[in-house]
């Protein structure tokens, strides 16, 4: 029982960070219909930012998100404006490859700049935890879970209730029509990619204290982000949140009951099952 509860709890906590990664991707996909294969690399950039803010200026990772978030937003906006905007109308596979290329540039650029060494960000709470009923709860993960929850709530409100948020969604559904409504679609794309990048960067910042950093770290998370987004339903924030937590829990519990080696299989099988019964994901709206 303890084992089950322990895996459930740590699954949920990790799932929170996954959710944040997934939400970023889902926004990017939602608005631009671009599958961002560089998403993990954005996360990686966020991690490096956090790492150097911590080692050079001694800024705590959880506090540094105030800096990482806007910086990553600008960075994402820049990528959108300079690269992705040019291919928005083109075939989906071209978009995939463009983001793959961008990912290669990011990870190898970082490698040239900071070597491929593993970097470890050790705070004094990195391995601190507390016990409830024999279940250990990691303090940094709990904090990051809380932050994630907050960010998600704000985003949800933003996209559903504000005009800008709705305009972002409108742009996603029909660019030309959005233009005819007086929506500046280029700006919406920049905001969307900026938001996506900033969320990925924030997720990077949030796991920095408990994880490690190296130039290729992104690929694991890119794949995870895909699974989460599709599972939840592309473009759906609630879906991505749900998907993230579900994946976290599935990994954790799957690892215990099927063996660590199989936990990814558990995740992917779960993923396929959901798609088989609900081809547009948990929260996806089907309109085909």
């Amino acid at each position, binding site marked *: 029982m303890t084992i089950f509860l322990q895996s459930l709890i740590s699954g949920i906590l990790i799932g929170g960070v996954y959710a944040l990664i997934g939400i970023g991707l889902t926004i990017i996909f939602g608005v631009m219909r671009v599958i961002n294969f560089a998403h993990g690399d954005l996360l990686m950039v966020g991690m490096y930012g956090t790492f150097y803010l911590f080692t050079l200026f001694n800024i705590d990772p959880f506090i540094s998100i105030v800096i990482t978030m806007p910086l990553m937003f600008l960075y994402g906006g820049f990528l959108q404006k300079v690269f992705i905007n040019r291919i928005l109308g083109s075939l989906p596979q071209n978009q995939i490859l463009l983001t793959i290329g961008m990912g290669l540039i990011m990870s190898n650029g970082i490698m040239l700049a900071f070597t491929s060494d593993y970097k470890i960000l050790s705070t004094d709470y990195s391995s601190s935890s507390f016990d409830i009923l024999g279940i250990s709860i990691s303090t940094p993960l709990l904090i990051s879970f809380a932050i994630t929850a907050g960010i998600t709530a704000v985003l949800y409100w933003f996209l559903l209730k504000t005009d800008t948020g709705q305009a972002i969604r409108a742009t996603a559904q029909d660019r030309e029509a*959005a233009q005819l409504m*007086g*929506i500046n679609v280029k700006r919406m794309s920049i905001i969307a990619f900026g938001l996506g990048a900033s969320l990925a960067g924030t997720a990077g910042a949030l796991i920095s204290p408990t994880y490690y950093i190296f130039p290729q770290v992104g690929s694991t998370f890119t794949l995870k982000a895909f699974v989460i987004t599709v599972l939840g339903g592309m473009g759906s924030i609630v879906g991505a949140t749900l998907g993230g937590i579900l994946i976290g829990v599935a990994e954790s519990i799957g690892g215990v009951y099927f063996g660590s080696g199989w936990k990814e299989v558990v995740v992917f099988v779960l993923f396929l099952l959901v798609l088989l019964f609900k081809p547009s994901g948990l929260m996806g709206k089907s*309109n085909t």
Partner: protein
Amino acid sequence: MLTIDKLNFSYGDLKVLWDINLEVHEGEIVTVVGANGAGKSTTLKNISRLVKPTSGSITFQGEDIEKLESHQVVERGIVQVPEGRKIFPEMTVLENLRMGSYIKSARKAREANVERVFGMFPRLKEREKQLGGTMSGGEQQMLAIARGLMANPKLLLMDEPSLGLSPLFVKIIFEIIQEINRQGVTILLVEQNVFQSLKIAHRAYVLETGRVVLTGEGNDLLSNEHVKKAFLGM
């Protein structure tokens, strides 16, 4: 109010507009008729700057719109109800309408406008929460028109608004067009329903293979032999 001067346009290698000259005065209903592929929709797209002309100029209230982006054109008061409706499929009817009044100047009047268009199209009120993409063809057409009205346009470009509407509704639509025109909205109307549109139009242009071949008052054109033969099948 709107002046198009020597507009030329091509899709890639295919030239579709040749030296188009067209004028719309404040308060008018101007209609453009022409066979399929004549370039009517393309002309409207040029005005909304969804595509950029090869040469020629378009001025609106004295301002050259050359330098404007699509969304800025809308801010100036030119709103288009596009061909093919272009509803936001995954937004509800109400959300679609709200997007219609996205521009700043229209936001204040949003609630009032929603009521106004619901009055015109009761079906939309019934289906307030239905997703745009699941509405029937004609219902989507109503939504598209309603959405266009939400922006409080000065100049409303309508591309085949009666397409797919039942006879009853076609009648209603033409009444609505005249009604909003009376309320001070200038209208540039592209229609296949040549008879009806010429009847309500102050002036009209006839487009053939990308060129303006005829222009005159709506009623005059109705009795024009060429128009009768080519468009009215008489």
